[in-house]
């Protein structure tokens, strides 16, 4: 380990592994370390015994639940948007060759006391029971506008400058009602709260377009895809990319201590009495706790079940978004379910998650609206974790710290953080559009 590297990455979370892969492909000499003996850090997938150890102390899991190795329980449950940034990153790096994906069966929203399928196209809007007959026509017109909107073509703007007009004003123009606004804002545009209504509408429209494009991408019943064997596959896939391009991997390295010079600039990492030198550090918040600040907490529940989530048309993989207003909360609640059909549980078993930004100290009570949707559960675990963001100046200390994962059930914020860090570290913008152009060319 007493060697010299350009970048040392600490923690093998998904963000850190993507960065390790990208930097190694760029020819950067990377050392990647983790205190755990598995990949994934906070974003890993645990087998049954690991799950029991984490949440129930040292207990062995009950035998009736099946083989431990058959479980891959995500610690950060999220689906991938079919046309989203993570898929584009996977294609850009060719990491898809290490992975297999399935389309997610369903995308639902909890509105008016019911779990309902999310429409995202004019056609779907007309069939949806979410809206009455007149509201359907208004929503259909709105979806058509969004679908046709092209930033560069003023004819599609319907006389509005979306960089000035707010989302609220745009929606008012189409006369949509409160429940429609809720499901569009939260289950299609995937906003986590209602602040977007007072912001320029451009972002919301682009998000809605992403949702529709993702839906069309794999001709699925939802805009999401998900890897076989769970999300823990993703950090491992990017780590392998890094290794293939020369990255050095050291799992099971306790006490990774970051060393600084007198000027406060990073010079290396010490572990087990050996020091590796480097010019830059990339890490998750847990490795440099003095350089991060708490920005909130996430409450989550993890359940093992023997049935799909009720009212989701027997979906083996599903997301249900509960918009904040439906619960009189400040932020949305997310319900996520996957199953043996994604090889994350033994035959007949389902894994469900409920998560939200915590607003109380009691996750069990706070998550009740979500856990009530699950029906009977075989086992359930409740947890709370803190979220952090960096407060250091990377240009002063050369430390690049990722922000903790949020409660959302998609990866767009995760990859945005990665791309921003990549630019800070390298000074370069990662161009993910080339492959999409190729994809578009393929479609034509």
């Amino acid at each position, binding site marked *: 380990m007493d060697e010299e590297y350009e970048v040392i990455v600490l923690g093998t979370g998904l963000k850190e592994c993507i960065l390790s892969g990208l930097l190694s492909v760029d020819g950067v000499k990377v050392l990647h370390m983790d205190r755990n003996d598995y990949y994934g850090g906070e974003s890993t997938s645990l087998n049954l015994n690991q799950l029991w150890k984490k949440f129930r102390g040292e207990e062995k899991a009950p035998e009736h639940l099946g*083989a431990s190795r058959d479980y891959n329980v995500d610690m950060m449950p999220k689906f991938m948007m079919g046309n989203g940034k993570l898929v584009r990153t996977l*294609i850009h790096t*060719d990491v*898809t060759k290490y992975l297999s994906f*399935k389309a997610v069966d369903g995308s639902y929203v909890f509105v008016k006391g019911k779990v309902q399928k999310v429409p995202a196209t004019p056609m779907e809007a007309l069939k949806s029971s979410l809206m009455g007959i007149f509201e359907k026509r208004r929503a259909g017109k709105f979806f058509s506008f969004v679908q046709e909107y092209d930033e560069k073509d003023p004819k599609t703007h319907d006389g509005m400058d979306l960089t000035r007009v707010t989302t609220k004003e745009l929606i008012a123009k189409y006369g949509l009602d409160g429940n429609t606004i809720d499901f569009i804002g939260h289950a299609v545009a995937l906003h986590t709260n209602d602040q977007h209504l007072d912001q320029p509408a451009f972002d919301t429209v682009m998000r809605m377009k992403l949702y529709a494009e993702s839906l069309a991408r794999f001709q699925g019943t939802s805009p999401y895809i998900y890897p*076989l064997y769970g999300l823990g596959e993703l950090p491992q*896939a990017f780590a392998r990319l890094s290794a*293939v391009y020369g990255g050095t991997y050291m799992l099971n390295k306790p006490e990774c201590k970051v060393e600084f010079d007198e000027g406060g600039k990073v010079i290396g990492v010490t572990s087990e009495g050996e020091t590796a030198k480097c010019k830059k550090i990339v890490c998750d918040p847990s490795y440099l706790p003095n350089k991060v600040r708490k920005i909130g907490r996430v409450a989550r529940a993890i359940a093992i079940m023997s049935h799909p989530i009720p009212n989701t048309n027997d979906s083996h993989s599903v997301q249900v978004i509960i918009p904040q207003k439906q619960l009189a909360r400040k932020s949305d609640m997310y319900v996520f379910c996957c199953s043996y059909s994604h090889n994350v549980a033994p035959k007949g078993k389902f894994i469900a998650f409920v998560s939200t930004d915590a607003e109380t100290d009691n996750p069990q009570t706070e998550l009740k609206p979500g856990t009530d949707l699950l029906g009977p559960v075989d086992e359930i675990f409740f947890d709370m974790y803190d979220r952090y963001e960096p407060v250091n100046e990377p240009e002063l200390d050369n430390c690049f710290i990722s922000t903790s994962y949020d409660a959302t059930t998609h990866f767009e914020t995760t990859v945005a953080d990665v791309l921003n860090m990549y630019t800070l570290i390298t000074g370069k913008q990662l161009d993910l559009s080339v492959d999409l*152009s190729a994809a578009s060319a*393929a479609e034509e």
Partner: protein
Amino acid sequence: MPSRRRTLLKVIILGDSGVGKTSLMNQYVNKKFSNQYKATIGADFLTKEVQFEDRLFTLQIWDTAGQERFQSLGVAFYRGADCCVLVYDVNSMKSFENLNNWREEFLIQASPSDPENFPFVLIGNKVDVDDGNSRVVSEKKAKAWCASKGNIPYFETSAKVGTNVEEAFQCIAKDALKSGEEEELYLPDTIDVGTSNQQRSTGCEC
């Protein structure tokens, strides 16, 4: 979901750094050898079509990509392997002694459904070095180890000059095929996310 008939067989190659794992793969698939040693860079997996009884199979041979150097292979690397190749250097007693660790690591990480009968193949590489004068692991000792692990096949090779490489991989392919056919894997329908190469290739054709 109904299981799909196996046409892709996964083989993984394990062993200490520097025993010649990557060179063996390259010699078998590409008939190439590089004298330049660096801890593996750029090796990933290689594929080779093999034919048995009028059926064509794709052998997918996975290198460790250097992650074995500090015992940092992930569970995904091991998953779904149909055969495990263990490699040691006949000139390095340490690499032979570590075979037990590699075999046990495989059984823990891969958790095969029938661990007693999972197919391993042992390769003793670098028999060409110094015309055999620096050899420290005898063939007898290696064969005794194989016998103690359920009579697994043993080959002595030189990736450099190509000695026995083809024979070793023929055996590996045969064992992988037998293992792959016996395993009734649950293979969900997957979607094609598409690789850059495919996209670019298709784009060029437009």
